[in-house]
């Protein structure tokens, strides 16, 4: 009789464990973008209590007063101005078939940067602005631009400029594939890679505001709002694709191809957690 009681108690205990542990495990693993974005903002605003939320988009220039002054002076004669002018001209120039970029985008491509990247339900993947621009070109019989060179930087610079001040408004639709893309982007952001064993978060979450050699590391919050950027280190403009691939090679990892799924998902994640922060691109960085 005693053994029967022991057996029944054990069975009850197991059942109780099963009922309590399983939902917990599922809940812990299920992505919650809203909670993530809140925690992301809290982390940075607590780490840098003197920096206003909207000022994080200025990257290293938001990290101290001296650097902020440098940025204000730089903005008098911004180094990205040539790129911006080039982008404006390119954007207005019709393709050989008479159509233009304006025909490919909502609101004729003006003031829409804050909505990219978006999840495309038809394709089941994330579509970035750079990708959409090249698809527009190809659909109109034009060759695609390199994702890491000046033409793409110029076009995105102009589109960002027409969207300045508009808050990032990235949507994650009620679609498990969108949530999966978001989660993949998050995983990529935190995964260590390369011989230096760095993740994106190693520099941009754990040590923003600190120096890595002569450079001040930017916080991850708002890091894409200023893209594309003129970098003094590059002596030229850089797209988001250029930023991602060079980050990878700097830590001695072989970069993926620009606009591979991982980078698209990473952009989706990073943009989403910066929702509400204003577009400030094109930007300038040391």
């Amino acid at each position: 009789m005693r053994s029967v009681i022991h057996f029944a108690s054990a069975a009850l205990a197991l059942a109780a464990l099963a009922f309590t542990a399983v939902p917990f495990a599922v809940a812990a693993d299920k992505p919650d973008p809203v909670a993530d974005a809140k925690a992301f903002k809290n982390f940075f605003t607590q780490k840098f209590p003197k920096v206003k939320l909207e000022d994080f988009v200025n990257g290293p220039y938001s990290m101290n007063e001296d650097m902020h002054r440098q940025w204000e002076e730089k903005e008098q004669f911004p180094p990205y101005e040539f790129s911006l002018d080039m982008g404006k001209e390119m954007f207005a120039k019709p393709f050989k078939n008479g159509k233009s970029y304006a025909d490919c985008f909502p609101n004729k491509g003006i003031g829409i940067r804050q909505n990219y990247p978006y999840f495309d339900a038809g394709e089941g993947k994330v579509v970035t602005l750079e990708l959409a621009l090249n698809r527009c070109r190809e659909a109109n019989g034009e060759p695609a631009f390199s994702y890491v060179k000046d033409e793409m930087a110029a076009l995105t610079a102009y589109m960002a400029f027409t969207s300045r001040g508009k808050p990032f408004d990235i949507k994650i639709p009620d679609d498990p594939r969108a949530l999966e893309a978001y989660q993949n982007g998050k995983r990529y952001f935190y995964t260590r890679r390369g011989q230096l064993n760095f993740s994106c978060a190693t520099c941009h979450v754990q040590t923003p505001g600190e120096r890595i050699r002569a450079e001040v590391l930017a916080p991850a919050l708002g890091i894409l709002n200023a893209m594309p950027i003129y970098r003094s280190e590059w002596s030229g403009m850089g797209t988001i694709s250029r930023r991602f691939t060079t980050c990878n090679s700097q830590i001695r990892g072989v970069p993926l191809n620009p606009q591979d799924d991982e980078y698209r998902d990473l952009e989706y994640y990073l943009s989403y957690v910066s929702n509400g922060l204003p577009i400030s691109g094109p930007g300038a960085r040391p």
Partner: protein
Amino acid sequence: MRTAAYLVTSMLLIAGAASALAAGSEADFKAAYAAAEAANKEAGSLRNQWTVTASALAAAKKAADAGDFDKAIASSKEAEALAKASIFQATSEKEAWKALEIR
């Protein structure tokens, strides 16, 4: 005297044979290079190759083309070790990334 001469000759012969054995051959290089390439390919399937692995593989090929198989084998082995480290990293990071997450 004759015995001493035999002894010296034998020692020289042994030394020569030993150095011939120690020197890497083209076949050794090919085997070491293939092992390194296979490991790097596996790292590629995990989307986690390292630039230094590619550099070591290139150095191995360059040394082999110059006929320096000792150096070519050493670079191949270095490349294999680096590729295996990148595989370990990718495998352990499948779960370890969560420890860095802002919550």
